[in-house]
């Protein structure tokens, strides 16, 4: 049931069978002149013991290192390998993690920028063997003259605007540009959407247009040109029109560019042009068109019919579909509602018949078709998918592969299926699948969902085992997840672990979240525990109090509420710390909060045990100060239970 935690994110590498290639080669030839080794003996001479020297094995350069690396598991107390292993320098909260990893990256980028901008200082090569990626790379185009070679160079350096300008110059000068080069130029323009890709190392030149466009897509990390819509006389169409005989490649580039940047109907009209010119489209064109199909039609049936139509045309033109076709069809089926559910499996079986194996992206689309968020249904699709997928190692073949794990764990969370969740997590440990978990943000989502599911479904020992394994080496939980953990503790009646959790909370940076802290206090104050647990609770409570007080460093300050104050007092009283409780009681006045009657009653009982009359009187005065309705009762109690002098009466 519980998969071994140490294999959670094991960087497992190739097995032995893929490392070795048995090579036909004898051992070192022995040139001594006395007794030759058996390899040179005549086979007719049968010695009682023939020395058979086995063939020497050969392996790749990294094979030994990989074999040794396969003996190493993940260390559950260490943080990510990127960071320095020092208690001061490892990140303790998720924001620190992000900050540190980004700062490392930015340092690296700054170094690369300097090396590339001033290459003459970095020419000496120390490394043996030569490491090409550490040498300065040329950022500026070398060839200056107006020629095709210069155009090719600019295309390779991905300078879109410069390439287009040069092309125009070439056209004006009358030099013919070959079809291949023009196709490459078209590819470049259509891929980057007619604007230069953002240079990572060079600080971006911000002009007004780009700023406006960037504001539109705060969530999208790609280049600002995504919102760029295919304008009327943009460069791609212009270059295309200048071509005398566009071939399949040019049409394909244009159609894919149109689909990527949202000009769907134009894509279809270009496709009809292609058919009119009696040219054949290739696989990627069809993939792009299938992706565009759900956008141009409205009703589910029509969408599906269009896709089927395209597939039929593909068969007519003898174009073999590939994995991306399958994924495109499945992705389109997501938008097709009920039709999608009925058609998904036949599509997969047909593709299987063509020996196209579904990748994780296909399974992801499949799951999304059958498990719409918010839609309650009973299906076993997840189990069947997991049966298919378990134990296999996948390589990244489609950009959507990275969504599989997140979708799968979301479905497990919605359907509260812990068995499948364990299987999904086990799949992550197989082979190279850990690469398919996505970037840090997606990893965080995955772990958050997995852990919440665990807290909901499993008993506290299992939860704690996973907690110790995952936190904080792999995952920095958010305050919501920590609240789930607290609820799990509560359900299983392990409230004695609260002080430890509080320590972890402080480290994770959630120590100043009001709701969380108040919930902690409530849990501690609710029941009376045995003595030592109560002591630890008291320590913890005083620590919490410090968090409220030290608000002079610009941290988010928490404000006391009546509930939290009363909880704090009850915890301290239960641990027999009257003095501290008395201090807190005074805080009621300073923070303008009203204590409840039960609290004052409890306090009185506590005072009675110690028998301090003055304190009792002060208590009565306090309650009178707050004009509590229970004051007369208090007075009565005090009079009954204490021996008062005349003055005190």
């Amino acid at each position, binding site marked *: 049931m519980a998969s071994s935690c140490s294999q959670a994110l094991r960087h497992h590498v190739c097995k032995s069978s893929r490392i070795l290639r048995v090579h036909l080669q004898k051992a070192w030839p022995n040139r001594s002149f006395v007794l030759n080794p058996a390899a040179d003996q005549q086979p007719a001479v049968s010695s009682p013991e023939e020395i058979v020297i*086995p063939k020497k094995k050969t392996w790749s350069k990294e094979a*030994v290192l990989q074999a040794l690396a*396969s003996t190493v*598991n993940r260390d559950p*107390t*260490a943080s990510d390998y990127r960071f320095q*292993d020092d208690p*001061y320098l490892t990140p303790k909260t998720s924001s620190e993690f992000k900050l540190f990893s980004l700062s490392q990256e930015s340092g690296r980028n700054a170094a690369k920028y300097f090396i590339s901008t001033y290459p003459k200082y970095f020419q000496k090569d120390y490394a043996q*063997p030569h490491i090409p990626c550490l040498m300065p790379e040329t950022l500026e185009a070398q060839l200056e003259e107006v020629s095709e070679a210069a155009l090719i160079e600019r295309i390779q350096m991905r300078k879109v605007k410069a390439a287009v300008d040069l092309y125009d110059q070439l056209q004006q000068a009358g030099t013919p540009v070959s079809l291949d080069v023009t196709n490459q130029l078209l590819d470049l323009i259509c891929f980057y959407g007619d604007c230069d890709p953002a240079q990572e190392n060079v600080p971006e030149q911000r002009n007004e247009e780009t700023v406006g466009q960037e504001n539109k897509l705060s969530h999208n990390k790609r280049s600002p040109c995504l919102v760029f819509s295919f304008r009327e006389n943009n460069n791609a169409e212009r270059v295309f029109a200048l071509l005398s005989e566009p071939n399949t490649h040019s049409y394909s580039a244009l159609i894919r560019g149109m689909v990527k940047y949202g000009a769907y109907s134009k894509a279809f009209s270009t496709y009809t042009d292609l058919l009119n010119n009696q040219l054949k489209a290739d696989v990627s064109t069809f993939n792009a068109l299938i992706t565009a199909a759900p956008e141009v039609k409205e009703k589910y049936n029509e969408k599906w019919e269009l896709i089927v139509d395209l597939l039929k045309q593909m068969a007519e033109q003898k174009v073999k579909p590939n994995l991306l076709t399958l994924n495109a069809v499945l992705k389109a089926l997501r938008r097709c509602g009920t039709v999608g559910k009925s058609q998904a499996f036949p599509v997969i079986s047909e593709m299987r018949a063509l020996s196209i194996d579904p990748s994780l992206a296909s399974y992801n689309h499949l799951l999304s078709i059958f498990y719409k968020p918010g839609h309650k249904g009973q299906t076993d699709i997840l189990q069947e998918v997991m049966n298919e997928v378990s134990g296999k190692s996948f390589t990244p073949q489609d950009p959507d592969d990275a969504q599989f794990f997140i979708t799968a764990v979301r479905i497990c969370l919605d359907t509260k299926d812990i068995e499948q969740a364990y299987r999904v997590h086990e799949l992550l440990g197989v082979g190279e699948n850990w690469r398919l978990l996505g970037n840090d943000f997606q990893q965080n989502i995955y772990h958050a969902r997995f852990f919440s599911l665990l807290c909901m479904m499993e008993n506290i020992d299992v939860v704690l085992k996973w907690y110790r394994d995952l936190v904080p080496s792999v995952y920095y939980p958010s305050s919501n997840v920590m609240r789930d953990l607290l609820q799990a503790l509560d359900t299983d009646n392990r409230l004695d672990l609260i002080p430890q959790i509080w320590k972890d909370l402080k480290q994770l940076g959630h120590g100043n979240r009001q709701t969380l802290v108040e919930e902690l206090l409530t849990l501690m104050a609710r029941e009376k525990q045995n003595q030592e647990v109560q002591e630890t609770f008291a320590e913890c409570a005083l620590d919490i109090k410090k968090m409220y007080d030290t608000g002079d*460093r610009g941290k988010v300050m928490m404000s006391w509420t009546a509930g939290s104050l009363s909880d704090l007092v009850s915890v301290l009283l239960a641990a027999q710390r009257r003095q501290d409780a008395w201090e807190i009681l005074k805080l009621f006045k300073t923070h303008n909060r009203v204590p409840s009657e039960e609290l004052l009653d409890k306090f009185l009982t506590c005072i009675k045990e110690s028998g301090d009359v003055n304190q009792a009187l002060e208590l009565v005065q306090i309650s009178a100060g707050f004009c509590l309705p229970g004051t007369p009762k208090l007075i009565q109690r005090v009079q009954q239970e204490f021996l008062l002098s005349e003055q005190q009466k």
Partner: protein
Amino acid sequence: MAASVTRPALSSLCKINSNINGIYSLTSFSRRISISSVLSTSAVTTETEAAGRGVRGQRRSKRQAGEPRTERMTVDQDWTAVYPTAASFKPSAVPLPVRMGYPVKRGVPPAKKGNLELIKIPNFLHLTPVAIKKHCEALKQFCTEWPSALDSDEKCVKHFPIQVQSKEFVSAGLSLRNPDVRIVTLKVKLSSLNLDDHARKKMIKLSEERYCKDTDTLTITTDSCPLRQQNYDYAMYLLTVLYHESWKTEAWEQEKTRADMEEYEWEDSPSQKKVLDTLLRMRALGAKDEVEEGTREELLGQPAVQEYRDTMLRLKNEGETEENLQQYKEAVKKLFNI
């Protein structure tokens, strides 16, 4: 405090050969030092700021170090995961209460936190027996089986008398290459080669100091070529040439004088002449002075003379020991009938 102690050590540390621990330890250590020095200076400045300026705007609180990893390590954890490769000593990752260094005055050696002595020395925390077992298991797939016929050392030497040794080096640094890798050492026992007496003596003479008399081993070390394969070929070539040359007899070898001989020969030696002379004189005291060929052999054939000869040979070839001298004394006594 830590910064002031470690600053003079930084310059010496920079000169430490990076071959020992790799660049990683050097950079991590220097980074730690720089952080700690920055920390101490920033702490000082914030204090003076607070005193001088008072609260002004937002001051970021001083970052606290978290608890060390050792607190969270369980007793039955997988140590090979904590120290998978050679790394410098990390006090926050090693859960042992180690102390090292010269004791503080009337105290104990300093603790492990911030202890430079522990970081400087090489440690083998990555090579615990468990780790070595795991590594061996993983490396077994690269090995072939040992031939079953070779189950004793004698058989190995009998079938494979030539031993070739070469070294491989692994280090982390700017360059993966190590020029010492080209050195090839070839060892062979002369007893396993097919040599007669003259060939053996000539071979020993030709190989001079490469031959070790005690173990009867000829060791050829080659490092003149840039590649190991070339050096190996050269060593085998040298062996071949030595062998063939020692079988040949050149014309000028006839001129071998007594001074060139490797071991003492009794025949035609001054000792023999003296003995003959003495014996003849002893005999000829009563007879005439006639030296005949026959008497010479007869004299030499006497057992006393043979014994004298043996002891003389033993003395000269093996050196002077108590035993040898005793035997010589006996032989002389017998010779002169004392």
